[in-house]
């Protein structure tokens, strides 16, 4: 187990370094740079001003020099300075991370609760009308692109039925305490609904098939034969075992949901990592974009590792030799 963990950690570091080189190269090769953006919006800017600014931002250095400068400061724990926001990237990312984690955790919790409940219900009522409704809803959820769904939800629930805000994370100036808590909750409803949809849909499908497989096993039949009430049979024996593969699946899905947050946050103006990445790429704010992309890559590596570990813990047949 320890050897497996050490090997995977080394692999993880190599993958992250490779990804960082790839991401840095792609960002630098993206047409335009911050100074060109400034020059484009200012008809009075002169070539010497442009040269001065390029030197100021270190844009004249060759790409490999810029990469090594960046990686050296990252290894020292310094993610650099945001050109757009004028603050250290670390501070910026920490602030935004909190908002993204709020969105992510709520979405996973909602998707898990609804997905598992719907999946179990669907399995226990196989081929019933409810099963068909859940199945169709799950496929619809899987098929809807996040961006499109976001716009549709805004039109439905913020414009036509003005129940929820069309974006943002808070009503500016709302009183702290209970009103602020409710205000945040109110702003969370639409983005969470959108972000939770795909996870909810796929987990419903997996839970349904996992449950259908488990209820046919001998130990479930035995539990019934022993005279346990149906509720106990389902909760204690069937559902507990059916959940094992789902837990692994959730670990694997989190990076996907996190990536979905990039679009969801953009649509709903939710000030998290996704919106930050979008703005950073548009504004050629390389340090910020690299920090967010590196974080997304790190999350993917970590959650894949967690999924592998969860396999072993959940299924005693798997050994880490």
């Amino acid at each position, binding site marked *: 187990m320890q050897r497996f963990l050490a090997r995977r950690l080394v692999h993880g570091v190599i993958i992250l370094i490779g990804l960082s080189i790839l991401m840095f190269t792609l960002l630098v090769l993206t047409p*335009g740079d911050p100074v060109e953006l400034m*020059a484009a919006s200012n*008809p009075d800017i002169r070539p010497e*001003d442009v040269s001065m*600014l390029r030197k*100021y931002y270190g844009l004249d250095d060759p790409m490999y020099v810029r990469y090594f400068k960046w990686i050296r400061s990252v290894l020292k724990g310094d993610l650099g*300075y945001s050109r757009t926001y004028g*603050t250290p990237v670390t501070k910026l990312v920490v602030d935004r991370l909190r908002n993204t984690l709020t969105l992510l955790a709520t979405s996973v919790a909602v998707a898990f609760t609804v997905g598992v409940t719907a999946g179990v219900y669907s399995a226990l009522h196989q081929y019933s009308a409810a099963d068909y409704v859940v199945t169709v809803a799950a496929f619809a959820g899987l098929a809807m692109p996040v961006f499109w769904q976001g716009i549709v939800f805004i039109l439905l629930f913020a414009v036509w039925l003005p129940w929820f805000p069309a*974006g943002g994370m808070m009503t500016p100036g709302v009183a702290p305490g209970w009103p602020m808590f409710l205000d945040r*909750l109110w702003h969370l409803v639409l983005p969470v609904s959108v972000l939770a949809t795909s996870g909810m849909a796929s987990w419903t499908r997996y839970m349904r098939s996992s449950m259908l497989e488990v209820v046919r096993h001998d130990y479930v039949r035995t539990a019934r034969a022993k005279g346990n009430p149906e509720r106990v049979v389902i909760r204690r024996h069937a559902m507990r075992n059916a959940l094992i593969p789902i837990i692994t699946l959730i670990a694997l899905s989190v990076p996907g949901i996190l990536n979905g947050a990039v679009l969801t946050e953009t649509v709903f103006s939710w000030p998290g990592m996704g919106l930050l990445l979008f703005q950073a790429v548009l504004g050629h704010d390389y340090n910020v974009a690299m920090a967010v992309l590196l974080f997304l890559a790190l999350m993917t590596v970590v959650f894949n590792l967690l999924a592998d570990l969860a396999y072993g813990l959940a299924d005693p047949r798997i050994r880490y030799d």
Partner: protein
Amino acid sequence: MTNSKRSLLALVVVAALALGTQIPSVVAQQSRDTVVFGMAQEPDCLAMTFCSMAAGMAVVNSVFADMVKYDDKWQLHSQTVEKVPTLKDGDWQLLPGGKMKVTYKFKKGFTWHDGKPHTALDASWTYLMLRNPRSPAITRFVLRKIENMLVPNPSDPYTLVVQWNETYPFANTGHTVYPRHVMERDYLRDPAGLKSHKQVRNPIGSGPYKLVEWVPGSHITLEAYDKFPEGVAKIKKQVWRFILDATVLQANVIANQVDATEINNFSIDQMIEIERRNPAVTAHYTPAMIWEHIDVNVENEWLKDKRVRQALAHAINREELSTKLFYGKQPVAHTWLPERHEGFNPNVKKYAHDPARARALLAEAGFTMGPDGILRDSKGARFDITIMTTAGNAVREQVQQIIKEQLRAVGIDLRIDNRPASVLFGSTTQRRQFPHLVMYAWLMSPTTLGNTFWHSTQVPTPANNWEGQNYPGFRHAETDKLIDQYMTEIDAAKRVALLRKQQEIWADELPSIPLYFRLHLTTSNKKLTNVKPTGLSGTYINWNSQIWQWQQ
């Protein structure tokens, strides 16, 4: 049901009721002492000589008072100074050798938001700071024309004298002023470090609103400054929300979640939809100084012949573009200056849609029709030309498609080769890397005289380090002479006459095909009074927001 389950259910019901009732009431209470602005950009900073995003300029309009500013009629009026200097009154003097002296008297009541007085000393220090090549000013276009900015009498810190080393017709439009007491110590330590000074993101201004908070990615909150000498703003707070997607911003306007929009990227379709869906909103279609056009590379072997350029203008149905794409709201352009500019000439040569005339001009230029319906030049080469524009700009891409069809009708094969905006403006135009045509817009102001667009010294070349914006490569001796004259002509009437003459020549030569003038599109809640959009970039919808009021 057990007690614990009942309690849980009760809690859920209470929370649901609270969600349904309490939150909207929180919003409702707020709306009357607050204006929520929505914009599709987040500023990069709030020190507008160190950064350049329009979003920043819009917020700064509320935070800083200006020496002199434009109103909605595009008339100059004084704010922190007693009057706009004029030649007639003698506070703007012409000196021998083409030099000038302009004197401003600062008003005594203005203070910075930390209570310190706002004086001419701040202005003269700001000039010294910005003139230093080590300070991070992104442009020194006007500063280079100034010899010095002085407070001549130490006992009178309210008089500022600006000494100009060349004649500049807009020398009375004021200057940027920063608070010396806030920035000087850090400037002396490291001028380049001012780029990250607190004044850049958390400015101390002197305008009707002071900055309270900037929540990155979310909003900026401003609060009325209670010592603003022109009168405390009637609405207590301004909130500037950043909603980056124009469709989502549009939804926010329709849902009444923003009260006014600026820097919004709305199309005319979206504005019409807003009007239709929310009668509580006024959609402002303000004539602006944004000139959409096609630059022609006049160094191209075919396009150097002005008859070919004129044929292009006759072949393109600009009236139809305006009617079909913009519901007739965006006027067809016949020259490069918009109607509201002082130098606009309504009597220039105009090019109506006339394919027959276009074909005749092309025949005169030596083109003959080929078997495939495309013209051939005297050497037998097919007349196919390329047009470039900003990739992803839906309106420009639509215009390209229409123009392609219209040029095909006169025998010109148009190929489309678009580039991302950063590439198009970063290298394609500046390095003149377009073989034939490039479509984009110029943003102008009342002080725009087009010298960098049309003077032959302003053709970017490796020799001049790609300086200038004469991207067509237009070289015309008489035009150069006229520009040299009007650039230093102080007398507005004479300047206008020279500008008009220049446009007559321009409209005959056609180094660019004028398409249409874009509108400045903003929205505001109908219950907000005194909202008067200007249509000027740099003077945004909130220019007079201290007198806005919610109608009861």
